[in-house]
């Protein structure tokens, strides 16, 4: 990819093939040497449905799928809108970064982000989040999470290029409407994702993310 033509870096994620192994999560944590309780990429396990009685037989109607989420480097980054120190900036290539020396740790960005992307770093007492591995990307290599995925469920690149290549959506349960922040995210939904918004579904692993 020629970086000069990138107007908005984005992630593509294929939820239909993701096994939920969390290698992406671990690779990110390792690459950035993140402290305990800070996950720049998190894998949400969405579960729902129920068992239904069909005559004398109980039939399973349950489902589960994974969502691997990082910062989506939104085109309307709500995290940066309220930042009192202008510590959150958006580069020309779309990557949203937190300037660590400017952050005062007010956590206002953390309140606002509907993707849980902003993680408060208790050791450094400032907000932190995925930086799209801009050093790797700048050197022509993929972000750590993309490189590590054994299922090739993750890809990266310019939003428009990814859209042409894969299509996809950014509105999968339990994510918010795309109009809120316009995330640079394309997801191929799991086959049961449509049911999740209708049936009773929830994130099952809050304790670990």
């Amino acid at each position, binding site marked *: 990819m020629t970086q000069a033509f990138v107007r908005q870096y984005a992630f593509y994620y294929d939820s239909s093939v993701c096994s939920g192994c969390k290698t992406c999560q671990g690779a990110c944590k390792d690459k950035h040497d993140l402290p305990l309780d800070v996950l720049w990429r998190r894998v949400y396990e969405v579960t729902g449905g129920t068992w239904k009685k069909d005559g004398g037989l109980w039939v399973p109607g349950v489902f589960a799928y994974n969502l691997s989420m990082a910062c989506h480097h939104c085109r309307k980054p709500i995290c940066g809108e309220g930042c009192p120190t202008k510590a959150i900036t958006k580069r020309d290539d779309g990557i949203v970064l937190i300037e660590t020396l400017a952050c005062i740790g007010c956590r206002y960005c953390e309140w606002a982000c509907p993707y849980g992307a902003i993680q408060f770093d208790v050791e450094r007492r400032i907000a932190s989040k995925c930086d799209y591995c801009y050093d790797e990307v700048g050197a022509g290599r993929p972000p750590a999470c993309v490189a590590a995925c054994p299922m090739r469920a993750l890809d990266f690149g310019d939003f428009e290029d990814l859209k042409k290549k894969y299509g996809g959506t950014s509105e999968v349960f339990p994510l918010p409407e795309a109009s809120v922040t316009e995330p640079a995210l394309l997801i191929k939904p799991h086959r049961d994702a449509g049911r999740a918004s209708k049936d009773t579904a929830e994130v099952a692993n*809050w304790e670990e993310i």
Partner: protein
Amino acid sequence: MPGPSEREWSLIAFTLLSQTAVGAFWTVAAAFLMTDRRQGFLENRVFTIPFLASVLALLGLAAAVSLAHLGRPGRAPSALFNLRRSWLSREIFFELAVIALVLILAILRYRGRETAPSFRTLVLAAGAAGLLFLHSMSRLYMLRTVPAWRGLHTPLSFLATALLLGPLGVLAGRRVLFDFPGSLHAFQSAAVLASLAAVLLVILTVLFFTPRAGIFGAKTETLRDLPAPRIYPLLSFRLLYLGAALLFIFLFQRNQNSGYILLAFVCAGVSEGLGRYLFYALYGRIGV
């Protein structure tokens, strides 16, 4: 969803202290403006040094405890860098503006310059800065990703807190804060403001409990799932009613026993503290 704001004690203290200070200032400012017109400028001594010092102390304490919320309090001055877009920057700006204006008023009063026309202008400016301070404070919580905070109840409850605790504080501390005897407009305006606020808060709590009450996002289902002990809302509402009752008993007493108003202030303060705790406990954003 694990919220980041389960125990925002410093923000609870900051919002309550600063709203009380602004409400108290408005109370005495209203009395000042009424006295000014009715009794002539020279007679006006309603802005006493102890009162202005108390307002400054409350605002200073509020600012100090708010620093505990920051990860890097040493960098706090840079929070003023985004006045163009950030309500948090504006909140801090207007807080500093109120402090500066009240400080100037205190200096003028100390030097016996309270009769100068600029004093009246400064009182109006400080009152307006206080309003903008509270407005910024409520707007910063009204995030479009946090439905529980986005409603009309956020500015209304912040305003009602200022109009309840401020005047009650003025009434409760009147013997210490003011150096003149007799019935004063300060106390009359305090009584009127506190009564209106108490009535407003009682209406708000009734609407809060009413299912499908339209303008309020909170429904009875929300209360059932409240991430806080269930006694908190009940205790908060009952203490508010008790405080309101004590206020009205005080107002209709012939000799106006200070014990009632002190107890009313304590009840209202604890009620508002619990209410503010619940406000932060109700944090929940859309998405994940």
